[in-house]
């Protein structure tokens, strides 16, 4: 019985970890290819912080003015300074309704979704690598 519980826990853990590391890799790939930097200064909310902490490609900063990019779920609570920064969302609606949001990574029907906004990218003079061009929908 105990064995079974331990096994289930282990499995669950590894699944969670795998998802996290998958997400982290995606962030690394997407953000480094857009911002062309070895260590990207990023302002995050608590959800995303946990994931990004595990990588040395990101430098997590306390305030938005120090950051190059802001990576959060909801933008409504952000200060005006933050809202001026290039925003990367983890929520589709925030991404859709916030003009400064250039991209988003979120889950739909259990499937991960990546999307970009052409207008916002151009506004911040950000260019996408060719591999990501196909994720530009609007």
């Amino acid at each position, binding site marked *: 019985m105990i064995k079974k519980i331990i096994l289930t826990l282990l499995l669950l853990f590894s699944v969670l970890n795998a998802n996290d590391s998958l997400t982290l890799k995606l962030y690394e790939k997407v953000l480094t290819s857009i911002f062309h930097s070895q260590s990207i200064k990023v302002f995050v909310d608590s959800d995303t912080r946990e994931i990004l902490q595990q990588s040395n490609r990101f430098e997590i900063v306390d305030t938005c003015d120090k950051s190059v990019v802001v990576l959060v779920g909801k933008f409504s609570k952000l200060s005006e300074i933050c809202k001026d920064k290039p925003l990367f969302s983890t929520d*589709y609606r925030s991404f*859709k309704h916030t003009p400064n949001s250039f991209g988003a990574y979120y889950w*739909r*029907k*259990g*499937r991960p979704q990546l*999307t970009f906004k052409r207008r916002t990218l151009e506004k911040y003079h950000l260019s996408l690598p060719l591999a990501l061009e196909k994720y530009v*929908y609007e």
Partner: protein
Amino acid sequence: MYMSKIVKSGRIIYFFYLLALTVLFGSLYIYNEFERTSQEIKKLNLQSNIHYIDNITSNMAHHIKNATPKGIVKTLKDNAHLREELEKDLQLLITKKYRYVYVVDKNKNNRNFRFLLDGAKNAADKSDFLESYVPLNLQYWNEVYTRKKAVYYKDKSLKALWLTYLKPIIVDNKVEAIIAIDFSLQEQNLITSALKKLTQTFILIALFSLSVFIIIIFFSYIDRKRIRTLQFQTKEIQHFNETLQEKVNVEVAKNREKDNMLLHQSKLAQMGEMISMIAHQWRQPLSAISATSSAIKLKAQRNKLDKEQTIQLANKIANYAQHLSTTINDFREFFKPNKEKLETTYTNIIEDVLKIIQEPIQNKAIKFTQELHCEEKIFTYPNEIKQVILNLIKNAEDVLLEKQIQNPYIKLKTFKEAEYLILEVSDNAGGVPTEIVDKIFEPYFSTKTKKDGTGLGLYMSKTIIHEHCKGKLSVSNDENGAVFRIELQEIKRKV
């Protein structure tokens, strides 16, 4: 009864073989059967699920088609209210089992999928109208468009717990949209895992019976080996016993041969003894014959032999020759075990003896007296007794002549003493010296060197009296000389 026979014969082991084999093959068969059935159950379960979901989605497809007469995208774009209505319908389907129910189509401009309707209850996961969508395993989704038929697949990345069912909404033989349902296979997986557990149990049983089988075979092998060595040993012992019997038989045969030889030898010895006895008894008559013939010769040389004398001397010789012949007859029967006894008296026997011996003794100037006081019947071998008396008289004569006794005599006396009938032969030669009295009855003991004595006379006499006649022969000395005494039992009248 039959069982115990089998057990005894050691054939019980075959029963175990059979049992073990049955268990083994039985469990293998059951396992195989079970595997097959469990596969079928899985398949049937999946099929029934698919069948059910296909019914639902085709109903839904009809419903949506009917609600959007101007084309799905076009109608829904203009009518937010209808969208809401239809999404509510989709929402009704959502349960624990049917997690996501939504409708997508392929954007004709950029060939990407986009949401048209979403049955999500959770606002966070609720997609917007025309929101772009990148499903995993895109090839299946495209396949719906090309094949215009429902497609389903297990999403490997979702740990195979979910099956995605894609149902096309076909308008004018064209796929307008896809109804997608993600439904849980947990139920199925529960069944599968239960079946798996059973399978494991069966494998365990099969392994167990296999090991039992192997153990039984192993032990029976050992047992067989043991029995074989036992049988071998038994055979060896049997063989040994058989050869032993043979050996015993051979030895017994050898022994019998030896016995025969001994018998033969003893017969020869007896014959020898008989011949010595005959020879012993012949001496006296032979010397008498020889003396008589010498007398005839002497008288003839002197021309003193008249007719009367010749006849007389010839008769004498004839008598002695007759005696020689009777002696042979007497001893011929000597060693026969069942020879016939006769009824007689001492007087009769003595009469016979005197016929032979009286004259020669008187010729030697030995006085011969008889005191016969016994006329009782004895049941014995008279010829043998006769020879004994002859021996005793001859011995007395020998010693009397040797010692040149004055007025020598030999006395025969018979009388009855209690139940015994006694015959005594006595002389006046001074008796047997005490130092040899113990030895005189032994064979080949003789003091007569001059006369060349054989020492057989008394031995023979004792044998006859003791062994044949069941009587007694003894010696004693009286004031004049030796007294030899024969004791025989009086006959007991039975008939």
